[in-house]
């Protein structure tokens, strides 16, 4: 497997030397002094791994053996016929072990943790996918594992909590702030500033202080590398457009990196429009009218949903994995440069797209991923049948049955839950 498209700050500066970890005006490492040595160590190990071709091969082999890579690129024949426009291809990250693209980053960082000789990993999680993936990696590598998860997310993702605990992780509900992803991230940082000697913080997305955006993007670039080869082989030419949902941005950057050097391929990031951008109950940072502004939080400079004085706002999305105040500094820069176009999908549109995809193709996207489907479905009909598009299906939805059944407001499911509950007493 080649490494040519792996991301680096140089990629975005057209050869102009820039401060390490900056992408245009975004990025950096705004970390408390107590973590300086930890980051220096992480940077050293990461750079070393990055410069060894054998490390990337070790990673690819691990993912092939443990996580069903390469994941297929499925031609969605029925959806293509349904819309009568562009040929629709779906990159199947849902078929990764643990059911989402999160496994790519986590297993890669696991290899680095082993190199650093650390014995414990911690992670934040929103929907639970990253927590699940980290708990799985920890079990596989033999690390102790603590997962920080907002109390609200613990409540809405109980099945994932159940599995994390069964995999041997300790799940700590975070009761501060909005009790969601950003608060879980803050709490993981608080753990790390005391535990960094034997602990690595496995950040789950392309955010946070340098080198995390670059490093996580590097591991996720495997998606785009595969997708580019696959579309050339299966379709014979490059796609016109590539769609991906954007929370922190890791699945999007993962697939986009395969096509960054192909100017004819338009890259579209789809954010959480929640109840509609105009209502203010959303989690869009880059899409038009989002109201986000430049800021520095959680160790990096990017676009954040915040008050004029810089206090972070509560965000809303039907998909916990997109319910986040900030966005990758790398994506903020690609947005500035016009390389990535941003759109948003509302909760209601997401349910419709999910429904259609299930009935038409027998494929169940995660609600996060369904955001990308919404925008692709809006645009595909107006495109010609000799154009292809790829939708990155970042994860699968069937394991989120409680959340999706709730979103569908399914009466028979509710009756089932009520009935099952009768069989349990607490205590």
């Amino acid at each position, binding site marked *: 497997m080649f490494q040519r498209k792996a991301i680096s700050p140089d990629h975005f500066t057209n050869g102009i030397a820039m401060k390490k970890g900056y992408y245009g005006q975004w990025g950096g490492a*705004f970390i408390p*002094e107590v973590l*300086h040595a930890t980051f220096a160590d992480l940077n050293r190990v990461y750079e070393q791994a990055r410069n060894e071709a054998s490390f990337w091969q070790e990673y690819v082999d691990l993912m092939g053996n443990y996580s069903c890579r390469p994941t297929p690129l499925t031609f969605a024949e029925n959806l293509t016929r349904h819309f009568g426009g562009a040929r629709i291809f779906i990159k199947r990250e849902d078929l990764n072990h643990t059911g989402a693209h999160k496994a790519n980053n986590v297993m890669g960082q696991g290899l680095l943790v082993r190199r650093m000789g650390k014995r414990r990993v911690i992670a934040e999680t929103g929907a639970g996918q990253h927590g699940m993936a980290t708990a799985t990696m920890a079990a596989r590598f033999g690390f102790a594992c603590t997962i920080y998860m907002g109390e609200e997310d613990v409540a809405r993702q109980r099945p994932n909590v159940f599995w994390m605990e069964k995999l041997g992780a300790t799940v700590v509900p975070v009761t501060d702030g909005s009790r969601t992803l950003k608060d879980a991230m803050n709490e993981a940082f608080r753990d790390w500033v005391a535990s960094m000697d034997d602990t690595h913080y496995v950040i789950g997305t392309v955010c946070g202080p340098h080198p995390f955006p670059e490093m996580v993007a590097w591991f996720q670039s495997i998606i785009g590398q595969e997708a580019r080869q696959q579309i050339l082989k299966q379709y014979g030419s490059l796609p016109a457009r590539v769609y991906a949902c954007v929370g922190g941005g890791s699945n999007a950057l993962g697939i986009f990196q395969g096509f960054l050097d192909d100017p004819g391929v338009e890259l579209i990031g789809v954010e959480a429009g929640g109840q509609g951008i105009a209502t203010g109950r959303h989690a869009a940072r880059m899409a038009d009218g989002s109201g986000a502004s430049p800021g520095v939080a959680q160790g990096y400079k990017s676009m954040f949903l915040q008050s004029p*004085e*810089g206090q972070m706002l509560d965000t809303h999305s039907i998909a916990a994995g997109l319910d986040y105040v900030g966005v990758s500094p790398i994506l903020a820069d690609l947005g500035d440069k016009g390389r990535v176009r941003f759109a948003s999908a509302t909760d209601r549109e997401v349910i419709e797209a999910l429904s259609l995809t299930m009935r038409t193709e027998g494929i169940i996207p995660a609600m996060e991923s369904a955001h990308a489907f919404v925008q692709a479905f809006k645009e595909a009909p107006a495109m010609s049948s000799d154009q292809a598009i790829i939708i990155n299906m970042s994860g699968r939805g069937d394991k989120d049955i409680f959340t999706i059944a709730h979103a569908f407001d399914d009466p028979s499911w509710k009756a089932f839950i009520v009935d099952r509950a009768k069989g349990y007493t607490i205590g």
Partner: protein
Amino acid sequence: MSRNLERELKQRLQQKKILLMTHLVAGYPSLAVNREVIRQMAEAGVDCIELQIPFSEPIADGPVILKANQQSLDQGITVEACFRLGQEMAAAFPQVRFLFMTYYNVVFKYGEDAFLRRTRDIGLNGTIVPDLPPDEGQSYLAGSRELGLAAVQFFTPTSSDERMRQVAAQGAGFVYCVARRGVTGRQTTFDHALDQYLARCRRATTLPLAVGFGIGSRGDVAMLAGQADMAVIGTATIKLVDAQGPAAVGPFIAGLLA
């Protein structure tokens, strides 16, 4: 009215064995209680006061200060109100050196230059911004120097000797020596490792050394005298005000120095 904080602290050290810096979160539990707490601190002989401007994501703070930040924000504290409180307190207690403590986003959104100018104009002496390491804060450090404000830097037990020298060279006023790993408010055990750490800090800089994180008793302060120049009392006074009200602060501070 810019002052040289380093020189002033060194002058005070000719009269006192150890100086005291206390901390409070603006707007928690209320601005009215803040005023009373500061009066108690000032009258008990505190040298410096760290006035924290709340931020929604205080990653270097533990549960007590985190909760104080959140509650203050929930009650509608603004950066403007913090500036007004700082101005009023600096004028009312000229013997105390006041510093703002906050996170970088608050400064960034206000505008670095505007924030620093306003801080100087209202009579404060410096700032402590834990998520702005010198590597990211070059313009902030330059602006602070130009205005005569102390941009306080941090030493930690994980800092190498070389890093300590680099960081100290960028800072002013004093160096905030974190006595242990972790966030604010956890217990520090004072042992031989601390002696060695403080000796290492002393070799790295001629700036006064403030030691913080987890100090809360007379024994702690007495132990530091001779090794450090200023003891930092953070979480302890917040807990005290929560439990016993602002009137308990004066006797508590006086007791630390007895």
